[in-house]
């Protein structure tokens, strides 16, 4: 691809050591990006259901979910719109903990996250197990704000952040892959930022 005339002499916002290709450090400025109007969700009314290809489908209330062993993520997040935010702290419960309680059937290969707005996103099961995914209700020690998906969002920080569905209320285990919302609308099926899997057609 051609070199852009006159580009490359100014300050660079990208830091190649920690940032995936094509990303820049947004600092503490966390952009809000959604496809739908922000819903109003009362934590006391919120529940999370794990069903589909599991042995024991289960629904937890807000209080029941908080009674599960807690788990914290400390690290970076990456949005497909090219910002990354470094050294974030999220707290909630590991998706592993939920799946230990429901079991997952041997034929389960993927999971569809469903949200209060109708938004969906699909992930391979291996991307939400083994300490790689959380239900998060705290950011930097405070309740997760509604505009960032509060009361509870999915957190899958090793993938682009559209996979970390806001306002999540159901994890459905699938026996085959099925595209979610953005995945039907031109975005990559998996979304690994280190491979720059932004849009359909990327490696």
């Amino acid at each position, binding site marked *: 691809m051609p070199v852009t005339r006159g580009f490359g002499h100014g300050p660079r916002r990208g830091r190649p050591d920690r940032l995936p290709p094509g990303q820049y450090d947004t600092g503490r400025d966390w952009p809000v990006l959604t*496809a739908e109007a922000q819903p109003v969700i009362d934590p006391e009314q919120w529940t999370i259901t794990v069903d589909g290809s599991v042995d024991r489908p289960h629904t937890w209330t807000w209080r029941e979910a908080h009674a599960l062993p807690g788990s914290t993520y400390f690290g970076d997040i990456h949005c497909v719109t090219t910002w990354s935010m470094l050294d974030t702290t999220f707290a909630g419960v590991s998706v592993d903990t939920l799946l230990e309680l429901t079991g997952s059937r041997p034929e389960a290969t993927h999971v569809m996250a469903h949200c209060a707005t109708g938004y969906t996103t699909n992930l391979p099961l291996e991307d939400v197990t083994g300490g790689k995914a959380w239900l998060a209700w705290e950011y930097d020690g405070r309740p997760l704000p509604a505009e960032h998906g509060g009361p509870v969002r999915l957190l899958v920080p090793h993938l682009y952040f559209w996979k970390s569905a806001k306002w999540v209320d159901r994890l459905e285990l699938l026996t085959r892959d099925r595209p979610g919302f953005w995945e039907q609308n031109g975005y990559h099926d998996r979304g690994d930022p280190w491979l720059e899997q932004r849009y359909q057609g990327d490696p």
Partner: protein
Amino acid sequence: MSEPDSAWTTGKVVELERIGDRFVTVRLDVANRVDHLPGQHYVVRLRAPDDYTAQRSYSVASEPDDPLVELMVECLPGGEVSGHLHDVAEVGDVFELRGPIGGWFTWEGEATAVCVAGGTGVVPFVSMLRYAARHGLGDRLRVVAVGRTFADLPYAAELRDAGAFLALTRENLGDRVAAPPHAEEVGPLVDGIERAYVCGTAGFASFAERLLGEAGVRRDVIRVEQFGASG
């Protein structure tokens, strides 16, 4: 649905117009172009001699039948890509481009719609209005464009001439006193709509969602495109 595969291509700048000190429109001749849907965006990627790259997404202002792809870029403080487009770019430059992208925030006349834009959020709606004008779909698209002043609002004259409702917050316009749009003004525009589009900053989007709600629009018909820190 968008085209399944949007590979990188290049676009040559055919026209470039700097408007005031904040906006620049760039009209590009795109190699191997795939027609976009009104509302879609392109990614512009800049490449340094050592292969360092920076890329950002910009909504398309032109309509699909336009032989060129028009992007309108606001110069943001410290914006790595917008700053280059604003300060350095010239006619004849070639940029890496990818698109069109996005299959959700699009309109081809399939639903009667109201669009509410703040500032540079007007860009996708300019594309929709141009498309509507070409295809005689003007009665299916109503646009509310919010800006501080007429000069501050990109495409203000074109929007006005296309029948958009301009709500200026810091400047009187005709009989309208400077103020944010309110539900009584927007009410007639949302009558009978099947879909609503909101485009602007996150703060503007939450304002616009509230405004539409007060005017009686159901939340589940609202499609939102926000832009935040991206330069």
